[in-house]
């Protein structure tokens, strides 16, 4: 965990005011310890992403929550997909084949290719 000063040093170009707004808006989740903020490596990366979206990619302040929400949904959906794949990986081979075989054809919906 790092403190606010270290974070501002790591992510060049943001101000403490920016950061406080982002924390208030719950775009960034900081831990509090005795009145000071603490940030994990994930939050540092997220702060950098938000800064780059605002500053480099031209995402407007009002659009930012929308984009962030889509980004968060994207990662949550990917995690759900990974869970599904993990669950599938624990199934016997014939069950996996039944599920995944049809996904291999054109557009993922075709019949399985030739048998062995």
């Amino acid at each position: 965990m790092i403190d606010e000063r270290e974070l501002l040093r790591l992510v060049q170009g943001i101000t403490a005011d920016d950061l406080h707004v982002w924390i208030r808006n719950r775009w960034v989740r900081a831990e509090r310890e005795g009145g000071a903020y603490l940030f994990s490596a994930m939050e540092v990366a997220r702060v950098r992403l938000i800064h780059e979206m605002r500053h480099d990619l031209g995402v407007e302040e009002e659009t930012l929550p929308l984009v962030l929400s889509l980004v968060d949904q994207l990662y949550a959906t990917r995690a759900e997909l990974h869970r599904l794949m993990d669950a599938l990986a624990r199934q016997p081979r014939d069950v996996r084949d039944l599920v995944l075989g049809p996904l291999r054809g054109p557009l993922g919906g075709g019949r399985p290719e030739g048998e062995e």
Partner: protein
Amino acid sequence: MADDPYTVLGVAKDADDKAIRAAYRKLAKGCHPDLHPGDKAAEARFRAIAAAYDILGDKDKRARYDRGEIDASGAEKPRSFYRNYADGDGAFRYHRADPGEFVDLGDIFGDMFAHRPGGGGGEGFARTFRFAGGDLRYHLAVDFLDAVNGATRRVTLPDGRTLDVTIPPGLENGQVLRLRGQGLPGGQGAPAGDALVEVEVRPHPVFTRRGGDIHMDLSVSLPEAVLGARIPVPTVSGTVTLTVPAGSNTGTVLRLKGKGVPGRRGAAAGDQYVTLRVVLPDRPDDELKDFLRRWGDKHPYAPRGGKAGEKRP
């Protein structure tokens, strides 16, 4: 070695700041790794674009690059992307308040499967299917000379395992080493995934690398340049003696054949190029001044072209 930043951003050499910024934005939007978590190549593209913009987006750095004082590399900063966290354990940190709350996969997948035509399994399709484990990605910084000459580095993984990474000679910045079978274990006896190690080559204080060649600047004294000398110089494979021919000058480039990056698979090794820089004494003494006054009157020459002795702008 990094490419020319103008080429990377696709802008003209005389493009103004606005055009450069617009080009960077457009390219960065298309490949920001955190916005394209499933695209493994996005990170390398984004790093190249960010490194180019780091130079061209900064008036001072751009001018220095244009003057040849800095090259296209060296602008890359090590960093960790958001997707490294959000695409792993942190996936639900921002999406759901309670990470313990399980997502109902049925909501998402049930709908999809319900509408798929020909959902039945049918008979007799028992094909071999290898459910290999996932790949793991790591980042490793190596010293310039290790990247050139090759080395073995032991890295400790987050789960406590150690891994010996063989760095092949001639490794380039940003190259990804694939260590077979060092990723996540496969299911049901299937092969494990691979560990992908992205290597960052640390810059060297003396050498820079362009392809297979090594470049360095060498300071020489006025007598060494005028009269010639034999000077020990470092190379990536140890010190050698360089013969500076009499009458050398600032900007004279000498080649040490075969002293660059070792060749791979039977290819010839690169060369080392040494660019001379004539350095005058800290404080010219009276003897030197007297000598140059007399010498200069008798032997005028024209370092800026034009007529000898002429002081033109």
